[in-house]
């Protein structure tokens, strides 16, 4: 991490500690009463006996914004981190197969709720007010092991309730149904995670459920896109938020998708990328969840506009992105990029040039670390009909 990013992190942390000293009693007690946005979290630590529970802030009211990435456009990194740090994570250790029983069923009801839900948690001991921000995982508020929990009534979202009681639909189709009925990705992911979908239900650690949700939906969208006409010019979209610069190139080609990431580590630029064509991707992407989040956002655009294209995305992660807040920011960042007015150009080479100038990495560096330029040497059999 560069000193710049450490400064930002330090400043966010010191403000957090300041607020802790003012409101510390809210966080460092052995109980909490508040309104969950609603939100649940399943950890991956100790898998397959995982730590599961609700996220609750020490306040009552409309807390929806605290865990609703789809509504965080324009918020600063500091604001978003504070949303997360305000959430106290209650946990109980549960085997992943256990998707029934009062505690889990209460959590499922919270997840299904269309409105924030009141919760009272009593912990085995005082929650520690220590929070850790290590630059790798998303930040968290205090954690406490739940002794007992009181859940208030909630109002269920109808489409989710319907899918929840449908035990004949498989998990992938359940995800797609929720998506097609307009449920937000962040919500679908929570349903997936807390074992509410499919025939053989189980708890799925939150970070895996995010990837799975993006993967299932984007794969299904791409199948539809393959039937669309291929665009005949290059389009370049870009957007910057939270210290992330996104440059998206659509070019005339049957569906192919590559995302190249560049980040700064001790003054050196590191690269990572992964790639697929119409046959899909058959291994876990080297750039992990960001890959599927980006694929989802760009495929939504192609579907909506009834077109097909090759896609190349550059993502520059600036040192200012000092605290990773989750792959939702990639999904939302690219969704936002695709809402901007594109630059339209015929030459792919010039498109690469323009997309690169949005970033501080040169065109040659981007290309060298990706596969697209090599992949487009492969002709299509349709060129010879």
């Amino acid at each position: 991490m560069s000193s710049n990013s450490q400064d930002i992190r330090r400043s966010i942390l010191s403000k957090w500690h300041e607020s802790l000293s003012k409101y510390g009693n809210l966080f460092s007690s052995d109980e909490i009463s508040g309104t969950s946005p609603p939100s649940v979290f399943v950890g991956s630590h100790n898998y397959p006996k995982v730590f599961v529970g609700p996220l609750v802030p020490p306040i009552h009211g409309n807390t929806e914004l605290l865990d609703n990435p789809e509504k965080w456009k324009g918020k600063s990194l500091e604001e978003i981190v504070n949303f997360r740090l305000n959430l106290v994570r209650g946990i109980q250790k549960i085997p992943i197969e256990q998707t029934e029983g009062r505690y889990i069923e209460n959590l499922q009801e919270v997840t299904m709720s269309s409105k924030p839900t009141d919760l009272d948690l009593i912990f085995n001991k005082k929650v520690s007010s220590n929070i850790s921000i290590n630059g790798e995982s998303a930040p968290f508020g205090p954690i406490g092991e739940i002794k007992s929990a009181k859940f208030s009534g909630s109002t269920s979202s109808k489409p989710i309730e319907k899918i929840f009681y449908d035990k004949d639909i498989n998990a992938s189709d359940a995800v797609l149904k929720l998506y097609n009925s307009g449920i937000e990705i962040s919500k679908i992911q929570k349903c997936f995670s807390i074992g509410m979908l499919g025939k053989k239900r189980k708890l799925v650690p939150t970070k895996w459920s995010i990837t799975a949700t993006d993967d299932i939906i984007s794969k299904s969208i791409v199948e539809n896109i393959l039937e669309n006409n291929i665009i005949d010019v290059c389009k370049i979209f870009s957007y910057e938020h939270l210290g992330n610069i996104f440059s998206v190139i659509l070019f005339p080609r049957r569906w192919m998708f590559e995302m190249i990431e560049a980040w700064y580590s001790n003054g050196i630029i590191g690269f990572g990328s992964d790639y697929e064509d119409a046959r899909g991707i058959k291994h876990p992407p080297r750039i992990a969840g960001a890959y599927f989040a980006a694929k989802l956002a760009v495929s939504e655009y192609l579907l909506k506009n009834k077109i097909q294209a090759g896609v190349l995305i550059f993502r520059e992660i600036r040192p200012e992105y000092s605290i990773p807040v989750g792959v939702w920011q990639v999904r939302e960042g690219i969704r936002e990029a695709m809402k901007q007015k594109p630059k339209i150009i015929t030459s792919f080479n010039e498109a690469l040039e323009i997309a690169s100038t949005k970033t501080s990495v040169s065109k040659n560096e981007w290309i060298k670390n990706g596969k697209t330029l090599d992949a487009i040497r492969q002709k299509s059999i349709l060129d010879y009909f």
Partner: protein
Amino acid sequence: MTFGAKTNGSDDLKAIISAISTLVEEATFVATSEGISFRGMDPSHVALIDISWPNSAFEKYECDSDIKFGVRIDEFSKLIKRADKKDSIEISISEENMLLVTVGKNKKYKIRLIESSATDTPLPKIPYDSKIILTSSKFDKILGDVQVVSDYLTINTSESKGDFSGKGDSGEVVIDLDKDDDDIEEISSKSDSVGTYSLEYLNPVVKAVGSNAGFITCEFSSAKPLRIEFKVANIGRIHFYLAPRVET
């Protein structure tokens, strides 16, 4: 409607299904009084497979009206693999619209049919300048030789000479073709040709059809698709078309 086709042995059907499985997950076959055919492209539209299996290649064949039937290749393949080499395989469509597969004398499978999605895919129209006929086992070995340094196979022909080559980050390889080799039957070209093709597509299909195919015919022109003909069941054939890689 009457449709029934019975093979003599299981190798040919295994080779065909295995070849199709390298390109697609679902396949729609067309059966007419002439025989069974299949045509399909891989999802990225780089390769195309065109199969013709005439009625006379079957031990028993009956089809009084044209039909299409779609299967999931992995599901079909699992059943076919249960057949011993000498087992005949008989297919027909059951009254409840399932694919009836009788393996050998006594194993009667039924598998679900899927909605057939066959659109009429045309074939590439290319005059082929060059031809190499060699055994599929020889070709398989050459692909292996090239793969250790490259992801792509380059074929060069000049009159009656030819070579296979490859180039990658670690190095390169050239394999001259020796006309006196018993595994090579013909090398000919109307004009000098050079074409480069992806091993990612070539390897699986050559392995899938296997040594079953005996001699195979590779035809191509400079920077144009490659067509490989594999013979099956004596008079049936698989045409595998692969688009080239070109410099941009």
